[in-house]
Structures are given as C-alpha cells and as structure tokens.
C-alpha cells in the first residue's frame, strides 16, 4: 500500500485536468442552491436540512456517474491502463486509489453546502446540528456506495458514456424502483405480499438513509453502506485482474 498516496493524489487531481470537474460542481451547486431556496419558502424549521440532504441522495444518482465514468474507462480507452498495471503497483492499490480520488472530489463538491445550515440559522430556522451532522454522514456513506458501484461499472467498459449511463441506471434502480416496490408492499390489495419483500427492503438504499435523517448513526446502516463499498472495490479488483485469465 506504499503507492496509495501517490496514486490517490493523481486520481484526485486528474478530476481537475479536464473542464468536466468545474462543469459538474458548478451545476451541482446551482442545483443544490435552487433546491435549498425552494425548500426554504415553505419550510424553515429544523427539518429543512434533512429534507434537503435526502434530496441530495437523489441528485447524486445523476452527478456521481459523471464523476466515476472516467475512472477506469478512460485509462482503458487511452491505453494508459497498461502503463499503470505494468508499474510495480498492485491492482488493489489501483482500485482503492481510484475510489478515494473520486470520493474526495465528491466530498469537495458537497462541502460548500455546509454553509446552508448557517444560512438557515441566520434567517431564524433553528437548525438541529446533530441531525445535520448525521445527515451528512449518511449522505457521504451513500455517495461512497454510489462511487464504488460506478467504479466497478467503469472497469467493465472502455466507453465513458456507456459507463455513465449504466451507472445511472443501476443507481436509479437501487434508489427509486426498489423504493417504489418496498412502499408498494404495504398497499397491495387483498393482503397479497410481494415475495422477497423483506430482502428487497433491506437492499433498498432509502431504508438505510432514514435513520441518518433522524439524527441517528446506526451501525447497521454504516455497515450496510461500507459493505457495498467493499463489494464494489473487490469487484473492481477482480475486473482488473480479469486480464490475467481472459
């Protein structure tokens, strides 16, 4: 793991080499600011930030694929992956550094929104800082899970657009479709149940996000998100290694 700092630094700074990073973060902040503004019109209580952060969980399904799409696809396409894997660097280091590079960028992208709670206080919204902290932790854990999934998908294709769209579809499915199915469980007529409903609701992101919104950092939810991260990185390592047995 001695190469991790060097690799991570390269992955993080690589975001800023292209205009992509600036475009993404500009639009992200524009979007976030607009949502905050709309939210403030009818809700100035302690819950405002919580609702906002849950909403961020949704818009991250769009923004994160744009950050993760280049991670490995770009290197595959340009051939630089060959230089990377023939250097004395392990596949594990490569996968982890790419994950960290993207996660750090997303943290940087989200960071300015911390100011919103100060704005909320200034206009007399009485923010609940414990709740906000927990919500941010939840949002970051959710984003890390997104990045891990995006990283893996990026390792499968040399085409960045395919990588982005596929990641979006997967994240959207996990966030919405499953949410819809889980909520449908309660409303099915005639007492019918959807098979595997309990499994489904466990896999659903939203369920695990709820307690963070209440100001609770539940270890079960933390473990859930971290296990997705580990799984994503592990799958990426295997995908990188696949050149050895393909």
């Amino acid at each position, binding site marked *: 793991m001695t190469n991790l700092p060097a690799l991570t630094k390269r992955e993080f700074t690589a975001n800023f080499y292209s205009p992509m990073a600036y475009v993404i973060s500009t639009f992200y902040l524009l979007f976030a600011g607009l949502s905050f503004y709309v939210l403030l019109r009818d809700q100035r209580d302690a819950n405002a930030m919580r609702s906002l952060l849950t909403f961020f969980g949704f818009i991250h399904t769009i923004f994160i694929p744009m950050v993760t799409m280049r991670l490995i696809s770009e290197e595959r396409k340009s051939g630089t992956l060959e230089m990377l*894997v023939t250097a004395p660097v392990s596949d594990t280091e490569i996968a982890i550094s790419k994950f960290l590079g993207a996660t750090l960028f997303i943290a940087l992208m989200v960071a300015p929104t911390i100011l919103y709670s100060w704005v909320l206080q200034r206009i007399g919204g009485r923010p609940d800082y414990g709740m906000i902290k927990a919500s941010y932790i939840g949002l970051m854990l959710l984003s890390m899970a997104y990045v891990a999934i995006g990283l893996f998908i990026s390792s499968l294709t040399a085409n960045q657009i395919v990588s982005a769209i596929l990641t979006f579809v997967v994240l959207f499915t996990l966030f919405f479709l499953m949410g819809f199915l889980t909520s449908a469980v309660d409303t099915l007529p005639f007492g019918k149940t959807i098979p595997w409903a309990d499994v489904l609701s466990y896999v659903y992101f939203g369920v695990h996000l709820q307690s963070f919104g209440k100001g609770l950092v539940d270890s079960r939810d933390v473990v859930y998100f971290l296990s997705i991260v580990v799984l994503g990185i592990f799958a990426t390592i295997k995908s990188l290694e696949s050149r050895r047995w393909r």
Partner: protein
Amino acid sequence: MIEVTDLVKRYAGITAVDRISFKVEPGEIVGFLGKNGAGKSTTMKMLSCFFPPTSGSARVAGFDCVTDSMEVRRRIGYMPERVPIYDDMRVEEYLNYRAQLRGVPRRERSHAVNEVISTIALKDVRRKLIGSLSKGYRQRTGLAEAIIHKPGLLILDEPTAGLDPGQIRQVRDVIKDLGKRTTLLLSTHILSEVELTATRILLIHRGRIVANGSPGSLVGGAQKTRRFHAEIRGPAPMVAAMLKGLPGVVDISFEAGEEWHAFTLESDPATDLRADAAKFIVDNGWDLRELREEKMTLEDLFVRITTTDEAAPMVKPSAAAAPPESPAAEGATS
C-alpha cells in the same frame, strides 16, 4: 536477463505466440523483428507482466513473470507501442509521478527526473502538457519514463513508429546510448533500424521464432552463393559462356540491353570474383562499366522468410544457435 521457455499465448481462437524460447544475456541489444501481428507485442506484454502466458514461462532476472510479477515489474522499463501516457499531465510532473510509482526514493527523485530530462534532451518541454507535445517529444517522454528508475532491462515496443526521419534518428541515437547501460529488447519492423542498433536479431513469424543471430551471421547464413552484378559491352552470349569458365563461377545469367548487357554472376561463397572477372573482361577487349557484389540485405532475408507460407524455419537451427555468445561479448565491450 530474459529466459523464455515454450511460451504460448492464445487469444480467442488465435495462437498469437506459439511455443517460443529464447534467451537474452545482460548487455545485449536484441532486435525483435517481424511483420505486424507476428507476435512481437504479445511477447513483450507477457514479459512486462501485462498479461500472463497461456502456457510456458518467461523469467526476467531470474524472477517469473507470473508468480513474481512485482519483482519483475520493479526491474524493467517498458514502453508500449502507442506510448500511452497521460496527456493531461506536464512532462516533469508525469516523470515525477512515475518515479514515485517506480519506487525511486523521495530524496533521489528530483535528481532522477533531472537526470533523465538531460539524457533524453527534454529540457525545452519539461513544463509542457504531454498532450501538446510533438510525436518525437512524446516518444522521448515515454523513453524517459521507462528509464527513470534505472532498470536492468528495457523493453521498447516500436520506439520509432510514426516518427519522421529526423526524429527517428534522434530516438535511435538515444536508444543506442541507452544500450550501453542496460539490456535492451526492442521491436520494430523498420529493418535499417535493427541493423544499426541491435547486436542480435530475433525474427518472429506467425508466433514462432524463425531466425536468431547477429545481423551479419543471419544474412551470411542464409546466403549459399555470392552474387555479382556486371554491365558489359560485348557479344552477350559469348561473354556469358566464357565467363562461366572462370574458376569459382557457379551460375551466370544475363539480360541483353541495346549496347550494354547486365550480367548476374554467382560464385561459391569462398571466391571473390571481382578482380578476376574484371581482368578477364578487359583482356578480351570488351568494355566494363560496372562490377559490384550484390549483398543480401536483412530486408531480403526478412521478405524471404515472412512471405513463405510454411511456418518451418528457413534458417537452420544449427546456424541460429551458434551466434548468441559472440554478440553478447561485443555488446559488453562496446
């Protein structure tokens, strides 16, 4: 330095490399020659641990490329054909980053970077974006990267591909210079290049090594007779018949022209016909305006070997096995 035994690589249905074996001694500059798709790059990718062989083994400096891949990777410098380097980094920044990955200690890093920048003559572009460099400078940046950690073995896949003649000369000079310090395996299909730089040639055709030896010995070994070209003014059929009587002449043929006729003489390898033939022609009262030996070039050999459909070696294994020792010695003394 390199020890390859029965190396095989199969991709979906195609055998790209078919049971090749060869050795490279420290200090040698080995030219890897072959048509596009012959298996050069595939072999190099296995040696650089990019992917493992289907079967057989490749060892670098005593370490196996599959089981001790990390050790091998630490000891080699590798430049793939397309020179895939990050376009969005600056030359110096990239070299510094790669030096770090290559395990150059922090304290020596800036010294190492400065050193390669001066050896490869990259001073003018050290702060430029790699993406904005000319092809020659880009190639040189790739070379600089490959030697930044002073590897014992340098593997260069088509280092001069796509360069203009001036750039080819520059890169070739750099390579020649590097050859004095490290063992070098370079692939190419530009024949003049290997003739100028390599001490030994491995000719690969359809995934097999079909010739192995120094450029001179390969061409010599493939030549059964010496050929001479002469242009003579005189009665062609009679000239031919009389020249045939000269000692050592094996065969003669001619192409009649209007006044001057072109003759091709073949002699046994031990005889240099030129002096005798010239004297003979002049003594007979004919005119001679040209007489030269037609040496078989590496190119002729290359074309001869690679255009045959049979995969059987054209150069006898006995001729191929002998030379490796001598070029190694030459390489060490030069």
